[in-house]
């Protein structure tokens, strides 16, 4: 009987302690290697962006072309041919940010066209903006290049192992001539084994 009481007191103490401390939350390193599952993860996204940006800005004809000027680029969507749902826009966003910060390229943002159009319409038509300071229509710069690509995967598995292979291809095409100026690839292999413990 005494033992039951003691155990009840310990249990109540533990419940109170867990209530007081709340859930355990901690911050981690966003650049750490993430291996929770074999699915597409943050390390894959970061590795793809780092490799392709390095390849593009060090490709000799691109180095030559960007030595004196910063060409304007438009980023098209990446076709996701894998069986997973992958936010490919997140990959192109990272690539675009790194390229912009390298000081080698400039971009036109097609995802903001509607908002830009609405703002310009407001400046022209609302009567609230000084016409001399309003952004004029027909002055925007057209993109010289288009960045686009594909992402595919091959998945194989047996009773104990799952092997996932990702291939990400990015291409840079001259919009006027249609010539592909550069293409880069990043391959990733991940293997997961079932744990028996």
């Amino acid at each position, binding site marked *: 009987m005494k033992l039951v009481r003691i155990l009840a007191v310990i249990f109540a103490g533990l419940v109170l302690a867990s209530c007081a401390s709340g859930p355990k939350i901690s911050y981690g390193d*966003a*650049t750490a*290697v993430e291996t929770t599952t074999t699915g597409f993860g943050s*390390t894959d996204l970061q590795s793809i962006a*780092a490799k392709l940006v390095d390849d593009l800005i*060090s490709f000799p004809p691109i180095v030559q072309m960007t*030595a004196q000027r910063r060409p304007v680029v438009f980023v098209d969507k990446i076709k996701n041919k894998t069986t997973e749902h992958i936010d490919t826009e997140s990959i192109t966003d990272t690539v675009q940010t790194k390229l912009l*910060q390298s000081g*080698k390229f400039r971009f036109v943002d097609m995802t903001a066209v509607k908002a830009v159009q609405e703002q310009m319409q407001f400046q022209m038509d609302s009567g609230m903006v000084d016409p001399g300071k309003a952004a004029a229509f027909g002055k925007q710069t057209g993109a010289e290049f288009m960045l686009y690509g594909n992402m595919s995967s091959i998945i194989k598995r047996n009773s104990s192992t799952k092997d996932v292979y990702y291939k990400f291809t990015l291409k840079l095409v001259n919009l006027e001539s249609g010539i592909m100026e550069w293409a880069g690839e990043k391959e990733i292999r991940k293997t997961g084994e079932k744990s028996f413990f």
Partner: protein
Amino acid sequence: MRKIILKAVILVGVLMSMLGCAVNETATVVVNEDGSVTQVIESNSDLLASNLKIADTKTGFVGNLLKVQVEIKNDSDDALNFQYKFKWLDKSGFEVAIDGRPWQPLTITPYESKIVQGIAPNSSVNSFKVLVQD
């Protein structure tokens, strides 16, 4: 006998946890204004330094961007899985594009070396650090 086994288990556990957390090798390479290079390789883990080491570094420029190459060598008779990461610094020693590069996983077969490369995120960079951890 039990005490000895227990102590051995605790010692191995402590050693394993030390191995699992530490950055083992760091190379800091500075490209000086006259083009010469100053290289410092540091190791904070004797246990791993004997297996995995930064054997060599090379620097060059593509346009106005610093291009670097690092040779990492496995001196053991086991395949080693580890991670590496580049950090970029400008002339004043400020880190550029913090967290711009991820830790990259890599495997090296016994007694082999692997080359890893990186391009500086912009033209203000004149030195880099490469960190290697298991």
